[in-house]
């Protein structure tokens, strides 16, 4: 593997959903994106800008129409989702998505401990896993260490997201994908989960791609910001630029985009009324 190549490389990736119907959406219009190893990239964008689609394309939730996705030296464009999972840890926006609700905490982690590995007839819950899990869960300070046999579905959204994060990073992933993982939480739980996110990423030195709606998170976290708009990368702030960025700067960039679009539409209307 070439050590100089970026960990993730998207080249000219296209995706259209519901092509040829009234519901046609084009969330990826020739996206190029390089992410180097160890980077913590924040992805920002309005609704429908294609930011979640970007994460899902990398994770393999759907097949891309054109282009190429490389991950850790492999061309993964044609890999099914479950195969890519060997390289990727994921936390979803919906706290219900990342865990199996009717199974115990221990069950869930025994699955995470085999992420991307062969699953055979070995006993799923070893004594070692239980001990290690109890220690790691105790660090969360949520009082869950004595409830490892509780069904995960009975826990709060914040607890589930914290556990999902722990599961996604139980085996160190090459790439961690966080898809607005605090958006569905109350402010206090969101803060807790963000703190935990920051800790884990720093400690394990994880390459991370995190989608967020929160400008505050975007400014406070990570070392690079990618702003998405209409299925493409609009701005890309490197660590140096990001350092000077304020929430207001980001908001004004979005405002610019909005104005430009309004202008486009009114101009188009003007032209139509003149010439058609």
């Amino acid at each position: 593997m070439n050590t100089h190549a970026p960990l993730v490389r998207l080249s000219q990736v296209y995706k259209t959903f519901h092509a040829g119907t009234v519901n046609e959406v084009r969330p990826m219009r020739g996206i190029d994106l390089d992410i180097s190893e160890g980077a913590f990239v924040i992805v920002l964008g309005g609704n429908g800008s294609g930011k979640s689609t970007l994460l899902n394309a990398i994770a393999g939730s759907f097949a891309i129409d054109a282009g190429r996705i490389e991950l850790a030296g492999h061309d993964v464009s044609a890999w099914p989702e479950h195969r890519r999972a060997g390289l990727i840890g994921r936390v979803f926006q919906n706290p219900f998505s990342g865990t199996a609700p009717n199974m115990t905490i221990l069950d869930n982690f025994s699955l995470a401990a085999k992420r991307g590995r062969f699953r055979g007839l070995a006993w799923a819950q070893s004594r070692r896993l239980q001990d290690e899990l109890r220690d790691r869960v105790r660090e969360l300070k949520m009082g869950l260490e004595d409830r490892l046999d509780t069904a995960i579905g009975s826990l709060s959204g914040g607890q589930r997201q914290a556990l999902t994060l722990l599961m996604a990073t139980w085996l160190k992933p090459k790439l961690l994908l966080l898809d607005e993982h605090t958006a569905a939480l109350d402010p206090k739980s969101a803060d807790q989960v963000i703190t935990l996110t920051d800790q884990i990423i720093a400690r394990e030195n994880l390459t991370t791609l995190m989608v967020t709606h929160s400008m505050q998170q975007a400014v406070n976290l990570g070392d690079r910001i990618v702003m998405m708009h209409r299925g493409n990368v609009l701005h890309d702030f490197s660590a140096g630029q990001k350092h000077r960025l304020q929430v207001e700067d980001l908001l004004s960039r979005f405002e610019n985009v909005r104005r430009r679009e309004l202008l486009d539409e009114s101009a188009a209307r003007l032209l139509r009324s003149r010439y058609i």
Partner: protein
Amino acid sequence: MTLLIGAFTLGAILSLLALGVYISYRIFDIADITVDGSLTFGAAVASILLVKHGMNPLQASGMAFLAGALAGSVSGILQTRFRINPLLSGILVMTALYSVNLHVMGRSNIPFLGTVTLSTYCEQWGVLWFGATETNLWGWTVSSADLTMLLLMLALVGLVAFALWAFLRTDIGTAMRASGDNPQMIRALGGNVENYRIFGLAVSNGLVGLAGALWAQYQNFADVQMGIGMVVWGLASVIIGEALTGAASVGVAIIGTIIGSILFRQLVAIALSFGLNPNDLKLVTALFVFAALILPDMMHKLSKAKQPGVA
């Protein structure tokens, strides 16, 4: 007493079917009608191997398991590779199996007269263990063969139940349970949901095929109609088991399902002895499952209606 032992034995045999239905209904959340076909398929394969080829009854029962597993994997492949609705997949495989079963059996009914089956084994072992063809059980005189059959079936069911419990706690078994609970999650953890589904339905219908083979040997004939409505029977057992035990964990759910099957067979035996027309059996079973399915919702609504102040 003979009636009671018979009901226990049949309940034990059909608990294998109930365990199969537990896998498809509770783990994968699908009502898998393949069961109606694979039960007969298991019985058909075993009966031909026993009658025509004189195979060892235990081996023949093992082959019935494989036959059922084959039927289950076809259903699984229809659901996953061809994306056909699970209910429709089951209907297709069940319908196709009806012809297959007739071909395998060559006719619609095969009696096991003069054939060595588990029943014949039990007659010999019964005399061996209890010293005579009849024995005393808590003051009742019962046939040693019947009693041996019951003990054999209970032992067999215990063995299968333990194996199933252990399997569901292995890496692949745990992943299979998760694929039914939250497919998105297990995919993100590198699990191939489609393969788990196919494999799970194979195991499920394998158990059903085994139940078919044992049932045929117990009643000493195989019939092409014996599988009709059996998925509903399995559902009833699973539901009774859950009502009794609460199904807090896999182990409890497995034990509950077995108890549910035996209990349901007892209830049926009692109802029949009180004059229930056997023709009404399927109707009553279906009504029972219907009631069990809507009751939780109805009770929920009733408890809400009683508190008009609560929004």
